[in-house]
Structure formats: C-alpha cells, structure tokens
C-alpha cells in the first residue's frame, strides 16, 4: 500500500515537473515564483522578511497558492485526458490512488514553500547580512514548517474533492478560485461585526499566547483535513468514476 502510494505520487511529480504543455508551464512559473517570492519581495522588504513574526502568515498562505495551481488536474485532468480508466483498471487500490495524488499535491506545496524560504534567507543574507548571518527565529521556522504542511494538506484535500467532482480541469480550477475567494469572506465580514464585540474579541486575543493560538489553529486544520479526506474516500468509487 505504502509503495503504491509512492508510485502514484512519483508519477504525479513527474507530470508536475514536465516541460511542454499545460503543467509543463508550471515549471517555468515555479522558477518565476521562486524569483518573485525568494528574491524580489525579500529585497523590497529588507531584513524584516526574515525576522518579522507576521511573515508566518505569508509562509502559511503560500502553499495554498502552489497546491491550488496543480491539484485541479489530479482527477479532472486524468478524466479529461482519458488516462483515469486505464489507471483504475490496474491492481492499485482506491486508497493508493487517492493518497498518492494527495501526497504529491501536499509535498509539492510545502517543498516549494521551503525552497522559497531558503532562497529568501540566502537573498537577505547576501543583501543585508554584512553584520553577520541572519536566520529565521526558531518559532517562525517551526511555525512556517508546520503550517506549510498543514495548509498544503488542507488545500490538497479540498482540491482532490473538487477535482473528483469536476467534469473538467477548467471547471475544477474555477471551483478552486471560488474556494479561494470564500477564504477571504470572514475577513470581509469583520467590518460588519459590532464594535463592542470586536473590542471583546480583541481583548481575548491579546490575552492568549501566540503559541496557544497556533496550536489551536493547527488542531482545527488537522480535524478539517481528516473530515475532507474521509469525504474524498467515500466519493472515490471506481464504478462511479468510470461512469462519470
């Protein structure tokens, strides 16, 4: 089972990193993204890019961007290119196919984020590290590592669900875009919350330790992912996929 999961993930990775067409362009775009987020933006922000605790939000959000770019293709793309039925006709179990694809999307999300973190660190040190080497504070490093994995997992699970249900890659991408917009809805709703309530919430937040918040958020993410994966497992039925 584990070997099968890795085999499926291996193929997905090969496809993600292949030059030539729709996904092939992603390799070129990956390099652009690494340059923008690992060189350009750090240079604009200066040493704060490495030291500011607020940047943990950037490292947490980034995997969503990467994963949503490739995850729509996982099932919808295979169905569109008529490769899914051949795959379903193999000895692979449903779980191996599902988890292999999830693993590929998840790994792609956090690996690219970690690469960008590393390139950022090099950039900042080259540009501003004359007084000694600069490093991310331990908590930021730990938070970024953990949240990049959790957010990658969350977006991969959402993406797999969307990709399983969508009729085409385009439809899956559109659904993912709508999903991304929905993530901002809570922030937009903040302005409608009565001021008194906002002040009360702010007081509570001030009294809570950031580490506790982080652990709470991480726990919520893990629970969400478990629920989404369970739904995906229920939806992943060979006969249903064949008839779709």
């Amino acid at each position, binding site marked *: 089972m584990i070997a099968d999961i890795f*085999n499926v993930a291996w193929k997905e990775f090969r496809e993600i990193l292949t030059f030539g067409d729709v996904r*092939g362009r992603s390799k070129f775009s990956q390099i652009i993204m690494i340059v923008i987020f690992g060189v350009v933006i750090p240079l604009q922000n200066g040493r704060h890019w490495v030291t500011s605790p607020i940047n943990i939000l950037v490292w947490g959000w980034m995997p969503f961007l990467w994963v949503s770019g490739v995850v729509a293709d996982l099932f919808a793309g295979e169905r569109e290119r*008529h490769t899914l039925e051949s795959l379903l006709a193999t*000895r692979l179990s449903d779980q191996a196919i599902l988890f292999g694809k999830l693993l590929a999307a998840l790994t792609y999300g956090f690996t690219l984020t970690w690469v960008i973190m590393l390139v950022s660190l090099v950039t900042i040190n080259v540009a501003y590290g004359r007084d000694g080497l600069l490093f991310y504070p331990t908590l930021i490093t730990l938070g970024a590592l953990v949240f990049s994995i959790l957010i990658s997992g969350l977006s991969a699970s959402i993406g797999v669900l969307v990709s399983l249900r969508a009729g085409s890659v385009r439809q899956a991408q559109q659904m993912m875009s709508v999903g991304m917009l929905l993530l901002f809805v809570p922030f937009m709703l903040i302005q409608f919350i009565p001021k008194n309530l906002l002040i009360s919430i702010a007081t509570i937040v001030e009294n809570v330790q950031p580490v506790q918040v982080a652990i709470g958020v991480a726990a919520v993410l893990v629970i969400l992912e478990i629920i989404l994966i369970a739904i995906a497992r229920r939806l992943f039925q060979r006969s249903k996929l*064949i008839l779709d």
Partner: protein
Amino acid sequence: MNAIQTNQLTRSFGELKAVDHLTLEVPRGMVFGFLGPNGSGKTTTIRLLLGLLDADQGEAQVFGFNTKTQANEVRVRCGALLEHHGLYERLSAAENLDYYGRIWHMSKEDREQRIRELLEPLDLYKRRDEPIGRWSRGMKQKLAVARTLMHRPELIFLDEPTAGLDPVASTALRDDLATLVAKEGVTIFLTTHNLAEAEKLCTQVAVINHGQLLANGSPSQLRARTSAPRLYITGQGITSQVLDDIKKNTLVKRVQQQNGRLVVDVNDLTRSHEIVKQLVNANVLIDEVHKEKIDLEDVFLQLMEEEKRGEE
C-alpha cells in the same frame, strides 16, 4: 479452468440493457474475438470483467475469481487497453511503461529489461525517451499494447486496439500484436468491429449485439453455421435436366441460375470438384468455376440481419 466464464451477466443503464444475460466461456491461451457494432455492449462487458462496474444480475469469473467480490485479484492478473490508450502524453514512452511496472512492483532491473524487450520488436526502443505527446496515433497504440503486457499478465483485454488508425497503421499494429501474442502466450480478449482483424488474430469469436450473444465459435464454425459456401459456374449446355440432376447431389444445398451462371450452395467447398465432375459428365462445357469464400464479415452482417428480422 477457463480464463473467463460469465453466467447470465447483465448490466443496465436506466432502461438500456447494455449487457443482457451474457453467458460466455473463454479458455486459457487463446485469442478470443468479441465482435459487435458500436454500442453493442463490448466495452461494458470488459468493464464488468475487470470489476470496474458491478453486474445487476448474473456473475463473471476471471481465472476463478469473482469479478464483483474479488475484483483486485482479477486486476492483478490482467492488463487492459481500453477505449482510449490512457497514456500520459507528457511522460516519455519509457516513463509510461516504467510507471506501470512500478504499479506491479517490478524491480528496476526487470522494468528496464522488460521495456527493452517490449519496445524493440515494435521499433520504439530508440525513441523511448521522447515525450509521447507528439507521436502518431499508431505509435501510441503500439505503446499502449506494450503497456498492457508490461507486467506479464495472464490475460489482456484489448478494446478496439486499431480503432481510428489508418489501414497501414492498423495492419502494422495487427502484425505486431500477432508477434507479441505468439511470443508472450497470453490469453487475449479482443473486442473489435474490424472483422479482418478478428479473422486474422482470433481462434474463437463471439458476436454480440444489443448486449445479447448472437453466436459463439471458431471463425470456421461461424461461417459454416450461418451461410453455405457457394460455387459460381459459367458454361454452355446447362439444361433443366442438368439442374435437376445437380439438385439430387447430396453435397448441394441449393441451385439457382443467375445471369446465365449456375449458383450452387454446397455443404463442403473442399468437395466442389465432385460437382464439376458431374457437370462435365453431363456434357456441360465449363468456362469458369469460382469459389466464393464466406468471410467473417458476411457472417457478421448475416447475424445482424437475422437479429433485426427477429426483432421485427
């Protein structure tokens, strides 16, 4: 034990019965042709046999494994080239085969050796590292056939492997298929509506339409069953007396005269010389004798017509 055995296998989609009480036996080691027009239920049958769809009624076994309850055991032993070739066009030919080799847990050395073994006879080995996106359809189909054989399955399903290919590519693929089959010795379940293909490759054929089995047997059995072989004889001195005498011959099923020719339906074409001898003895001056060999296409069309008449 048969490679495939179905018993009253039935699958409907709404009102449409795609496979209707299909009972079949496919012995091991043969090329079994499953013939039928488009939409006759061939692909659904393959999907049922691979356990990709569940039957509404009846059951099927592949190498003794129930396709519903032991589908994974079935798929472990089979390879399949389905309606679409299912190749990953962004990957190279070798990567496509390698992936399927990995799926079947083949070692790295075995995968490399097998890729060479399969691609060399198909003239694809030198191009194994090219992404296949720009390959011709014929080359992709060849590669897809190689992929089905990658893990040395005991049974392969080929769903219209030459569909959409030009005559040259179809012939080439058919030849390659015949070579590979002889070399690998696997059981093949081949669906097609190309009767020349079935005639060339299959030792046994079944004809299906509207999900129902219309005929089953070797190509020669089907030919014998559905239509009599025919002799066309042109000559002088074919009188009504000669016709009456010919009709009495036990070899002859039916005699008629068409455009000055004598048309004789016989039981056994290999004994046609006996009829010619009888005519010569009756002082008929024979100009030409033409034997019409009934091919599978005639059989197929006849079965389709019979079915249509039955429905009416």
